[in-house]
């Protein structure tokens, strides 16, 4: 009788089933993975689009201190000549993922003497993340990666690699704090006709709009692209282009809020 009460109590707050990712809950969930996803949802928003002439990714990097030197602790990483990724979630977990992506790129190159195709890289990264959901002595990754790549067969590609070890290819994807609002905004874009230059502005606008001024005052906007303009090479979007896009987005937001005030 007493034990029954106890186990009922434990079930209510998951505590029996969320201690390890090796345990399923009775309704078939793995709570540790869901908690890892929670870590991503608490993080700055990352958005990406695959458009007409390239793939662009942007991430809102919440700045932890006013004294931080701009550009440190990056969330946007290049992983090979033709691919790059941005991270939402724990920054150090993300770096681990970026390092692994680089290793996969160089190992593929050393075996096949050609650049790793986007879907292979995404799959290998997802496998890497997945392995961390299978054993009690490791924890899942507290981050998600938006991966942009180009190869001659499949053109420009955008993948989202999640802590659970799934990866899907998207036209537009968003993760992090503002993902719901960001997805709504992404759905309004016409990916077939959108150029990268336009996409930079759109992404800046999305990040600026979903940014929660009340909670995180300071943030940096980091962007990475692989596009015709960069000769299909992965590149951090030039700082002046990013700054300009952000300024325009912020100005537009101010106008909107002025209009709201008028009403």
């Amino acid at each position, binding site marked *: 009788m007493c034990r029954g009460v106890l186990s009922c109590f434990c079930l209510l707050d998951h505590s029996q089933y969320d201690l390890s990712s090796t345990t399923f809950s009775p309704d078939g969930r793995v709570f540790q993975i869901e908690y890892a996803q929670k870590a991503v949802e608490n993080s700055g928003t990352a958005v990406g689009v695959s458009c007409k002439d390239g793939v662009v990714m942007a991430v809102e990097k919440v700045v932890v201190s006013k004294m931080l030197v701009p550009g440190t602790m990056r969330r946007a*990483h*290049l992983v090979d*000549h033709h691919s790059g990724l941005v991270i939402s979630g724990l920054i150090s977990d993300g770096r681990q993922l970026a390092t692994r992506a*680089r290793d996969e*790129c*160089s190992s593929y*190159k*050393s075996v096949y003497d050609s650049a790793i195709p986007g879907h292979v890289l995404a799959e290998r990264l997802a496998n890497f993340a997945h392995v961390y959901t299978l054993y009690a002595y490791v924890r899942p990754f507290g981050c998600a990666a938006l991966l942009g790549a180009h190869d001659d067969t499949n053109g420009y590609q955008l993948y989202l690699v999640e802590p659970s070890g799934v990866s899907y290819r998207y036209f537009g994807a968003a993760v992090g704090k503002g993902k719901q609002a960001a997805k709504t905004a992404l759905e309004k874009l016409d990916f077939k006709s959108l150029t990268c230059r336009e996409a930079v502005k759109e992404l800046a606008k999305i990040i600026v709009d979903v940014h929660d001024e009340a909670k995180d005052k300071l943030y940096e906007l980091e962007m990475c692209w692989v596009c015709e303009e960069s000769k299909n090479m992965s590149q951090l979007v030039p700082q002046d282009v990013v700054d300009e896009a952000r300024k325009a987005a912020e100005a537009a937001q101010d106008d909107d809020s002025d209009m709201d005030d008028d009403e």
Partner: protein
Amino acid sequence: MSGLRLTEGSRGPGASVAVEGAPLTRTQVPYVTGSSVLGMKCADGVVIACDTMASYGSLARFKRLTRMHVASPNCILGVGGDYSDFQQLQTMVDAEMTAQYVANDGLSLSPKAIHAFLARHMYHRRCKVDPLWNSVLVAGFHKGEGTLSLVDLYGTAYSSDVLATGFALHLGLPLLRNAHRPDITVAEAKVVMNDVLKVLFYRDARTNDVVQLATVTAAGVEVGDMVKLDTEWNHKAFVQGARAGDESSW
């Protein structure tokens, strides 16, 4: 018998035979080889030059192969010795450059650093008694100055105003030294290179007459096309034999 051992063989004095119980030895002979590389530092840059043949022993096995590799926008390698080891070097250098690219920290490897990188690898391999069988000329231009360095299969590494590898150590280097002036220009050096390559083609039976020149200047690396040497075979010594007209008692 301990089964097939690919390292067994006795091709030349450098080859070692793996004996039962004895330590395992590595490949000790090159197979497909490139011959000499020449290099000269000039007032306004650096020139390197080589022919374009890879021999299999004394067989002229591959023609019109490049023996140069652009390592970075301001650094080029010219390589003699085993061609597959050269390809391995290219892979290594390229991997290093990719690592530099993805770091995206605004830094790049200088020609001096690339030379040091190669020297560490070559010395490491020779200490394992498993050398990459090459001599490599590293030509670069950095901070307004040309650099010209060499590293060989032992990991020996040095720099000089004029450098040569392989057979050109004997036949080419003296000619290069004679021709070199501190104020020599890249254009002048190219002419010198052509002359020395011609001498090498006449005398070194592991070269062909299609050559390639590359320059590194403030404008970056420029790799020339493969050019056929303009040769002259009617010299008296060529026609009548090396001692023709030789009155000496030697």
